[in-house]
């Protein structure tokens, strides 16, 4: 019984930290997207849009290294993509954090499950899936 109530409080703490992590991640990434959007509009506002036909090379900034390169040149679209990247990493960080919290709770089954989910995501990050 004592063990159960202790776990309950640990769970509560973890959930509160998890909630904060998600919120901060979303706000931070959206702020970056907004700043990128302002820069992008300032320089590109009068261009003509062309999204009629999907072209895999057109958007540029489709790898993490490209995004960081563009970020160095302060390009608006690179800043937006960096914000998008931060947003994508928000739920991934949530998985990482959950794994640690299950580790603290000594729930090794769920450490394993969490690690598996993380591996699936990291595998897709490896950039070998897009032909």
């Amino acid at each position, binding site marked *: 019984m004592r063990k159960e109530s202790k776990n309950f409080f640990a*769970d509560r703490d*973890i*959930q*509160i930290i*998890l*909630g904060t992590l*998600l*919120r901060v*991640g*979303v706000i931070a990434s*959206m702020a970056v*997207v*907004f700043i*990128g*959007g302002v820069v*992008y*509009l300032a320089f*590109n*506002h*009068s261009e*003509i*849009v062309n*999204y*009629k*036909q*999907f*072209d*895999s*090379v*057109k*958007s*540029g900034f489709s*790898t993490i290294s490209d995004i960081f390169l563009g970020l160095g040149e302060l390009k*608006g*679209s*690179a800043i*937006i*993509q960096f914000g*998008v*990247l931060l947003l*994508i*990493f*928000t*739920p*991934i960080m*949530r*998985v990482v954090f*959950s794994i640690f919290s299950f580790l603290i709770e000594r*729930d090794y*089954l*769920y450490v394993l*499950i*969490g690690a*598996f*989910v993380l591996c*699936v*995501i990291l595998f*897709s990050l490896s950039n070998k*899936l*897009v032909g």
Partner: protein
Amino acid sequence: MLGDSIFAAMSVLLFTIIVLLGAFVAGLVGSLTGLGGGVIIIPLLTLVLGVDIHYAIGASIISVIATSSGSAAAYVKEGITNIRIGMFLEIATTISAIIGAIITVFINPSYIAIIFGVILLFSAAMMVRKKVDHSDNDTSGKLAVFLKLNGTYPTEKGMQNYAVHNVVGGFLMMFVAGIISGLLGIGSGALKVIAMDNIMRIPFKVSTTTSNFMMGVTAAASAIVYLHRGQIDPGIAMPVALGVLTGATLGSKILVRTKTDKLKLIFAIVVAFLASQMIYNGLTGRL
């Protein structure tokens, strides 16, 4: 198509403003009805603005991550979300979302539009249907006990116990939901509800918040594939993400004070119309 004639030569500024407003409405209505913003923003981008569906899918998935993570933050704090159920089912949804995201580019855009329309019709039907709570406290499921999926959630009468049923069936249905999510760039909440409410018989409060909790990770998995493939274009993703998120945030604030039954019915009709347009344009090869 509409998009060809009216918006033939649109400037970046005009495009951004139109998409921003559209995404705001999509996020607002999506959050009020529980359908999510993706199901409206994709028809808007493709049917009205003539954007290639692959770009629309990439932008939509970003809005799914933003809205689901934003609202998950609130739910997680209330302690209704079952993190173990979410984590376990994420095995199915992340793998299948990546598979869906990989195959989507090899499928003819017309077929994607048709599949999208069918899922949209199905979601509209699920939205107006009377929900029946199948949950109970019969903890006889061995797998659910082994995986520690059974839990408690706060109600007006104090903490309520609940048991999870048919774990394998729910897992398989989640796999299907993940494929659809990766294929179409939507959260596919309607399919997740079937898996959790009807197959696993989880109480509404828990299933809604847990499915929302999973959506972010699932969408992130396919978003990485989209990003690498160049489907996430900053010029579209920026107004879509900002618009949907502000709309959804406003929606969740109104939601507490409004009765949504009538709104859902009106919205179901709008969604059914959008769905038929997507199917029609898919069948005639215009998308």
